[in-house]
């Protein structure tokens, strides 16, 4: 575990961590997500750059990218949903307003249900009459 105030405060709420120069990638359980995000955003003053969803062997992964602008460091909490058919996780939009569009995009591209999101509707494909369902998962679905 990196020697850092964030990791010392969060303790076992932070799982497997990859540390690189100015980058921390770490796994967080869905039930601990709000507490971790609240600390990163409100206590540490990080800014949400964006989030990346990816289909991996273990399921569907969502990686948030929080920039700590004062130090140039990125804190990237990683959530892994094992159920590829109905991936579900808590939305962070109630804590970080800037996440609204980011989560809507991930929902339509990967089929993730963000619980507690204030506006569950497509962002980019709403007006596309011929859009494929879950376009960024197409080639990976068995």
């Amino acid at each position, binding site marked *: 575990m990196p020697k850092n105030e964030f990791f010392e405060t969060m303790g076992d709420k932070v799982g497997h961590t990859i540390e*690189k120069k100015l980058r921390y990638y770490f796994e967080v359980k869905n039930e601990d997500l709000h507490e971790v995000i609240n600390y990163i955003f409100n206590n540490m003053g990080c800014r949400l*750059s964006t989030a990346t969803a*990816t289909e991996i062997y273990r399921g569907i992964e969502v990686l948030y990218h929080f*920039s700590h*602008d004062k130090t140039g460091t990125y804190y990237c909490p990683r959530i892994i949903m094992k159920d590829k058919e109905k991936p579900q996780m808590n939305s962070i939009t109630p804590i970080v307003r*800037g996440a609204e*569009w980011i989560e809507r995009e991930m929902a339509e591209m990967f089929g993730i249900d963000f619980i507690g999101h204030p506006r569950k509707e497509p962002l980019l494909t*709403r*007006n596309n009459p011929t859009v494929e369902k879950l376009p960024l998962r197409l080639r990976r679905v068995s």
Partner: protein
Amino acid sequence: MSMVNNVPIGPYHPLLEEAEYFNIVVDGETVVDIDMDIGWMHRGHEFISEQKSFTQSIYLVERICGICSTSHPLACVHAIEDIDNVEIPERAAYIRSLVGELERIHSHLLWFGLAGHFIGYDTVWMWAWKYREPILQMFEIISGNRNHYGMMRVGGVARDIDLARIPEMMETLDMVDEKMNMIAKVANDDPVLKSRLKGVGVLTHKDAVDLCANGPTARASGVNTDVRQDEPNDAYGWLDFNVPVLHNGDVYDKFVVRVLEVIESTKICRQCLEKLKTVKGPILNNVKHISPGEGIGRYEAPRGEVFHFIKSDGTNRPIRHKVRAPSFANIPTYVASCKGIPLADALITLASVDPCYCCTERSLKVVDKNRDPYKIDLLKLSREKTQDIRSEYHV
């Protein structure tokens, strides 16, 4: 009795270079709500990039935006280099920063022109675009292209700078500096411009932080964020420059932040060119293989932070390539900055974030609650407001 109307803007509108749709809800002349509908220009760059090699992806992302056509490749190569902690030669670092800053100058000059046009300052429009032209010619000297420069490579840059052309590039920078000081003086002295832009479309510091705004949009609201100072890539760690931060969050401060940024950019370009006279050596490190891993790359584009995330499995192509342009974070701030403003100020408030826009048509449609359409010209409305202020000042 109040009457609520909907004012749809887009998806194809002169304000917007990209197709976007805004539904402005007005009560009388006051904007009470705004809804954005994007996706009209979604081209699936992330999906396409995942079918290409790393080198091909750099060319692909260069075509995401015509104006920021060096910011996306720069962020992309930063992300790939971040996977393996690739170092680049010193000379390449100065060339990257030079090209990046020239892009900031030409992009901001483009914005000054359009902003001037929207509020009835057509002379500013013509001057700004006139001064932008020599910058595009500088790009031609450096890369052979006025746009889509093809300069970025993993490990360095593709082309060196011709030392014999440095004096004429310095002259161009001197000219831009002089003209920007003139525009700064206009912004400071012109009472009409101040009356027209001060207090208009305010984005508060709290809203900018909550909505995760970035770039000049955030810096005009007192948020001190700039990738060049927060995580100084390329040559930025060796260069002397300031990051202008203002605190009112209105359109005027967004204008002034950009003026000051152009002046800082000319300073950076001069330092880079001076260094390139003496710093010798290669411009490209040979990178043959990208290891499995994850990399974050970002660059402070003219509009804000361009962010790229790349995941590699050790093959020659990314298995995931996430791209986030600054407008994606800044356009949602309209919800905070447009509410409560007069309809005549809506155009310049939408433009103040600097979404991509061009000038083709000038009309939009207003639909009242009975769905009866009637025509209104938002540009005309905006310019008439400036004319009214001019009349008050007898100019």
